[in-house]
């Protein structure tokens, strides 16, 4: 960096060598700080643009033959069936702990009969789609990014192209469709298992009346709540697989590049699930009310 001469006023003391050095260090640190932020911002914008373009390409390719049903079923198996165990496990314990906390808290106000309905509303509207999304990100999103990244760096994707097969249609379309299709199903599974967990804890361990538990759920939970959550889950499912496909498909730089692509896919998907959940909820609140 070029040094600029500063003219001192008469009588003003010259800065010492140590002060000049400290100022130079501060300048370098600020330059690095804003440079890093700017670089990250530009990269995020480039990712957003790339993901949007890929979404448009995938949508266009999905309606154009050849339709690869076998690939779609294999992708549904990997994304959906492969995530069942982790969704059941997290669903059960999320419902159970929520049921326990609400039963204890609501008892303070003599409102423990509302515990079931509150758990059901929280599950259907928020917890099921968000936690299902996070679980699918960790399990299937990372697997997709790693698999496609490995295929990219070992030239398997180029090999597909040289055999006159569109790699996006062969590899990406089935995976994104699988995310869109299995997301709501996994979310529904999370709802059912979560409710079961909360029922077991709230009714059988905390002593809430079984009749009240179920009747309040019937009173307070509408189909709109369930469908709203499933719509969110479909959006999250499509988003997770799309981001994983984008990062894996564009991976470069050998094993290190594949690792970075996987990490970026998981981090970006997780953050976007939480951010977009707020906006989706804001859009759905009038419908739910």
């Amino acid at each position, binding site marked *: 960096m070029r040094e600029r001469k500063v003219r001192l006023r008469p009588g003003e003391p010259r800065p010492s060598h140590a002060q000049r050095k400290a100022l130079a260090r501060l300048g370098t640190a600020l330059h690095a700080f804003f440079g890093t932020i700017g670089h990250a911002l530009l990269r995020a914008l480039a990712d957003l643009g790339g993901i949007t373009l890929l979404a448009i390409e995938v949508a266009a390719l999905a309606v154009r033959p050849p339709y690869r049903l076998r690939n779609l079923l294999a992708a549904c198996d990997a994304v959906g069936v492969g995530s069942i165990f982790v969704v059941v496990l997290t669903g059960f314990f999320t419902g159970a702990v929520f049921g326990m906390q609400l039963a204890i808290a609501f008892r303070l106000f003599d409102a423990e009969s509302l515990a079931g309905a509150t758990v059901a509303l929280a599950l259907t509207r928020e917890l099921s789609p968000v936690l299902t999304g996070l679980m699918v990100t960790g399990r299937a999103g990372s697997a997709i990014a790693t698999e496609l990244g490995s295929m990219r760096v070992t*030239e398997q994707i*180029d*090999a597909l192209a*040289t*055999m*006159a097969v569109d790699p996006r249609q062969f590899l990406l379309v089935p995976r994104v469709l699988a995310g869109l299709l299995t997301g709501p199903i996994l979310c529904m599974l999370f709802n059912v298992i979560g409710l079961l967990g909360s029922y077991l804890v709230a009714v059988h361990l905390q002593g809430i009346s079984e009749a009240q538990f179920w009747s309040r759920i019937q009173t307070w939970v509408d189909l709109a709540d369930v469908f709203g959550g499933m719509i969110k889950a479909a959006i999250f499912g499509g988003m997770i697989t799309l981001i994983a496909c984008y990062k894996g498909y564009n991976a470069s730089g050998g094993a290190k590049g594949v690792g970075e692509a996987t990490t970026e896919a998981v981090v970006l998907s997780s953050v976007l699930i939480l951010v977009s959940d707020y906006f989706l909820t804001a859009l759905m609140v009038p419908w739910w009310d």
Partner: protein
Amino acid sequence: MIEVRGLRKSFGAHEVLKGIDLRCMPGTTTVILGGSGSGKSVLMKHMIGLLRPDAGQVIVDGQDISRLDGRELNAVRRKFGMVFQMAALFDSMTVFDNVAFPLREHRKDLSEAQIRRIVEEKLGLVGLRGVGEKFPAELSGGMRKRVGLARAVVLDPKIVLYDEPTTGLDPITTDNVDQMILDAKRALGVTSVVISHDIGSAFKVADQLAFLYEGRIVECAPPAEVRHSTHPQVREFLQMWFGRN
């Protein structure tokens, strides 16, 4: 026939190809020689439309493939087979399914029994009969390359591209791969383009040698003529090999 005219390609500020002119005649084998980083793979990727040039043309059987859209490009690619440096076999599929893949994609008229017969014939051509049920991870590097060749020629293409087919192989396997390239030309009459920095193999299989240096073809002639080239970089490259052998 493949004809490359005035091909230029840059990645960022780095200009890799600086105006390539090359003609590969039907039924012949052209070997593109050059050191690491000279742009050989980039040139080959342009020949099959994996990269788009910044300027210039790549003409395959009279069609400029750099101007084609995805669907038209796929139609041209069906004339090609490509053998990748690391074979690029689909690791989730068996050897049989790898070789059968292009048939299942493009020859819907064939029954599964016919596909099996063709795949076994092609595996036999590369000396790998009986390995169909193995996965690529269970094969040696040389065997993987031979499966890659079987897959590349399974649709009987008019043109086969070989990306460094002998790199990293032992001398016996290298000789087998060279023989395989010669056999593919003789048996199938294909136009072959080989990129390599293995001069011994190049002189064995080439009808035409093109020497790529710093993004330009500095020599292009039959092997006997290239051996007496006066170009300093070509002489240096050849002396290192012939001095050693």
